[in-house]
């Protein structure tokens, strides 16, 4: 099984898994969500490489081992993905996104038609009528958000993540806590949520469908942040989207059910043939 390397490029830290026998398909670009890092793809990336594809996953600025690059807004993250792509020379890639990685990555894909040759969405949304969940609303609220991020310690992070996922080991929690360890990082989290106005997606109506690329909506059945109805919404907006809802998995299904997720993604990418 190919291993994971941690590298630096385009101003970001990233993980890469390289195939021993490249099959000539597009590489796969994986964008993590909140409050995670590219470490969330640790199970999936070697499987993608074993199937003959190069897998590349940046830590978005302020998360994992990438330094914050204030302000940590949605738009700045979209721009960071663009710079990362250019620095690594990723002309076309299959895109795998989760949570905020979806809001960021799908916006980037729509802004750059042709950049994504297939898309896997999970635990996210991309629609102007979207509504934030309660915790996000707290992060978006002056005062409440500051309290939430500044008050989090490793014990609280552990309890928080384990309340909503069963796959979080100690190492994962240490990895994901990095985003909360500096004042700049914590501010970046607030910047991100406070820039997350779904109205900004108004100009993107219909754009995902126009990309005309194969899409898989991979969802945890018990997702309390982005309920599975979101998967069907993607299929409604992008006809032909495959929907896979994973039982006994929640929002963090890549942690809860890593083998099943890897199998679904690898098989989909094989079918998509990009």
């Amino acid at each position, binding site marked *: 099984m190919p291993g994971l390397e941690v590298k630096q490029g385009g101003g970001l830290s990233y993980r890469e898994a390289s195939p021993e026998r490249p099959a000539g398909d597009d590489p796969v670009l994986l964008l993590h969500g909140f409050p995670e890092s590219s470490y969330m793809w640790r199970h999936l990336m070697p499987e993608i490489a074993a199937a003959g594809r190069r897998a590349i996953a940046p830590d978005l600025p302020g998360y994992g081992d990438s330094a914050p690059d204030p302000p940590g807004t949605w738009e700045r993250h979209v721009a960071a993905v663009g710079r990362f792509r250019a620095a690594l020379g990723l002309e076309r890639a299959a895109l795998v996104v989760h949570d905020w990685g979806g809001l960021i990555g799908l916006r980037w894909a729509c802004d750059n038609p042709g950049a994504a040759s297939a898309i896997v969405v999970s635990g996210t949304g991309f629609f102007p009528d979207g509504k934030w*969940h*309660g*915790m996000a*609303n*707290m992060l978006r*609220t002056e*005062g*409440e958000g*500051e*309290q*939430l991020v*500044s*008050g*989090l*310690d490793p*014990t*609280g*992070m*552990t*309890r*928080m*993540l*384990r*309340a*909503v996922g069963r796959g979080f080991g100690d190492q994962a929690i240490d990895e994901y806590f990095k985003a909360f360890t500096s004042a700049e990082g914590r501010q970046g989290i607030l910047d991100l949520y406070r820039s997350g106005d779904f109205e900004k997606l108004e100009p993107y109506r219909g754009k995902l469908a126009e990309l005309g690329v194969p899409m898989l909506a991979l969802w945890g059945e*018990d997702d*309390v*942040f982005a309920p599975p109805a979101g998967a069907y919404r993607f299929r409604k907006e992008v006809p032909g989207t495959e929907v896979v809802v994973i039982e006994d998995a*929640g*929002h963090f299904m890549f942690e809860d059910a890593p083998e099943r997720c890897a199998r679904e993604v690898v098989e989909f990418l094989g079918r998509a043939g990009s």
Partner: protein
Amino acid sequence: MSGIELKRADNIAYREAIPDDAHDDPVLLVHGFPQSSYMWRHLMPALADAGRRAVGPDLPGYGDSPPDPPGTWERHVDALERFRRDVGLDRVVLINHDWGGLISMRWALDHSIPLSGLVISNTGFFPDGEWHGLGRALRTQGQGEALIGSMSREGLADMLGQLGSGFDSDAVDEYWKGYATEDRRRGVLELFRSGDFSKLAPYAGELGELGVPTLVLWGENDDYAPVDSAHRFDREIPHARLVIVEGAGHFVWEDDPERCAREVVAFLGDGG
């Protein structure tokens, strides 16, 4: 100045301040979330000095009272009634704050408690009430568990420090007790999840019909229980006295304890 004693009645820990010469109805003080009877530490001696016995329980799961699952609104109402019987209170002045208002006013109406005065502070009691962001998040399955689990003592210290000016390290230690164990955290979620304001529909207008002298005492800058609610209590309860404490927030009793004690003692002296 009278002192405060820590006591226990069955499973309920409580604070009591006893005057040298009690000459009026006792005062029952019911704390809110995430606090305990420690929040009344400034007020209780002042009440005793004014000749009133002052009794403040720690609701089950808060302060020094162990949880008594489930930690729902209704269970707290029951616990308060058991406490009243255990300590032998009959006619009382009721002073409440935050969740202590939701619990104790429901209790007083359910059990037709004879009240000789009522002090309402930074709470709500309206069937069309809406939960603030924190309340909504705690009420949401999964998210509430994540949120309550995320809280650390330092996090609570930060939160209270941002919300109010009167929280010292002892206060944080005291209020942290409400989060300190798994069953207590579970109780907090049960409390918020049982907090459907629609349950107050049968009580509409009843506070006003009690005909009890009422003081509405409110910290002006409150995002949780906005000052609009103070004006609404004032409108809905005939002859209520309204005191808005400027410069104070949700935790008005911590922010401006002297002013609060002065207002309450004056209100009681005027026949409240």
